[in-house]
């Protein structure tokens, strides 16, 4: 891993608020969505990954020493280790264990909603997954990982529909016939019965 302070372009003495501020500025600058099909998009993506990694690292480890008191720092770090094992569980397909771990956490931050969203989409509970991931994104709008997961869930729907709508557009008249015939004829053979 690269030096997180260098990635976020801050001093090693930076406070938690300064880290957050630096992260937001960089995330805005490098968010891959704004690059469209531009070849720079890949570069922005890898830069964004570094930024996220650095930010996560500093939020978990550094940054807590000066501006937060001991108890809440402990809280954050114990949650983050639970999050890690939840992620492993989901990755290994052990969904029920991941779920019971998540339900045991009382402070539900963006990461919690993100993991819950991933878990629910693995379970096939898409409505809840959509709600969870949207919440994660609104709690932390600059997090690329959350946005990507939400886009992936919604994108699945759109790319599936594409062949159907393309066909309809190519052949608008046929579809009108189709509609008018629908009531007259059923698949068991209709008029031949």
């Amino acid at each position, binding site marked *: 891993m690269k030096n997180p302070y260098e990635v976020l372009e801050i001093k090693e003495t930076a406070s938690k608020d300064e880290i957050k501020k630096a992260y937001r500025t960089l995330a805005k600058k490098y968010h891959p969505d704004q690059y469209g099909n531009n070849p720079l998009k890949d570069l922005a993506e890898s830069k964004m990954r570094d930024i996220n990694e650095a930010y996560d690292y500093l939020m978990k480890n550094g940054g807590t020493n000066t501006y937060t008191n001991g108890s809440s720092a402990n809280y954050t770090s114990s949650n983050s280790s639970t999050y890690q094992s939840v992620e492993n569980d989901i990755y290994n397909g052990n969904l029920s264990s991941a779920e019971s771990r998540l339900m045991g956490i009382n402070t539900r931050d963006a990461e919690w909603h993100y993991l819950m969203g991933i878990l629910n989409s693995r379970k*096939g509970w*898409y409505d809840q997954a959509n709600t969870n991931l949207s919440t994660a994104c609104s709690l932390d709008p600059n997090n690329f990982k959350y946005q990507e997961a939400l886009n992936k869930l919604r994108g699945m729907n759109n790319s*599936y529909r594409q062949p159907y709508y393309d066909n*309809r557009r190519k052949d608008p008249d046929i579809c009108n016939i189709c509609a008018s015939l629908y009531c007259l004829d059923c*698949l068991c053979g209709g008029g*031949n019965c």
Partner: protein
Amino acid sequence: MFGYVTPCKMELKIKDYEKFKAYYCGLCKSIKINIGNLPRMALNYDMTFLAILLDSLNDIDPIYTKQKCGIHAFKGKVVIKNNSCLDYAAFCNTALSYYKFLDNVNDDNSVKSKIFSLLFKNYLKKVPTDFKKHITHIENILTNLYKLENNAVDSSIDSLAHHFADLTGFILSSYNNDDNKESLYWLGYNLGKWIYIIDAFDDLKDDMSHDKFNAVNFCFNKDNLCYEEFSKQIQQRIDFILGTCAAQCMNTFKKLPIKKNEELLYNILQYGLLDKMDKVFKRGVYKDEKSI
């Protein structure tokens, strides 16, 4: 609850259309031979899809014959015969219809359903022994679903649909134990969820006017809106869930080692499901259609 999984006829090749009919008639014949004449009335398209999908995973050529039957008395129909996937679908069809009748009896005490449930119960005794444990399992899942529907307190649409999805996953993946079991379960889970939710949305108007339980109404209509307002408000959300389920079915289907009928199955999952959604949401070509 049944009959939503069909091909989109306009996108179908004639040969696939004929094949689908042959499976459909074959299923009807199989019910007659294995179970009895009366349960043929419960024949449905979803179970035809089940038979086609399972049969497409082996490379045995289906046997087509021309047969006459009571319903099509004068004109012979092409029928697939001696097919164990059709027999499996025939048993599933009968078992599911029986529990559907039973549910109707509990819901509104309908006399017609009561009579049918008693008749079907007798027919169910005829199922072969290796299918008995399937029936017990189906019964358990459906009992849980009906219990949940009757005592639902704060359920989400995902948790309500889970039981029917699980049931469909079980049915699709329990024909035999091979490598495809996991994929078939996942395809079935998503398809079952799709059926449960599209059926609920399709029945929304009816259920609301008769004050019957409806999963969509129960989960989302917190402000007690009237049908017109509510259905407009919720449509996009339902459309998202249905589209995602259907997309997952398609993705899983692509991973299966399909040996035959590939274009027919592709048609059902790619065009048939979306066509049904257009029909239920009254959009696209169905926009100006009067209700039939």
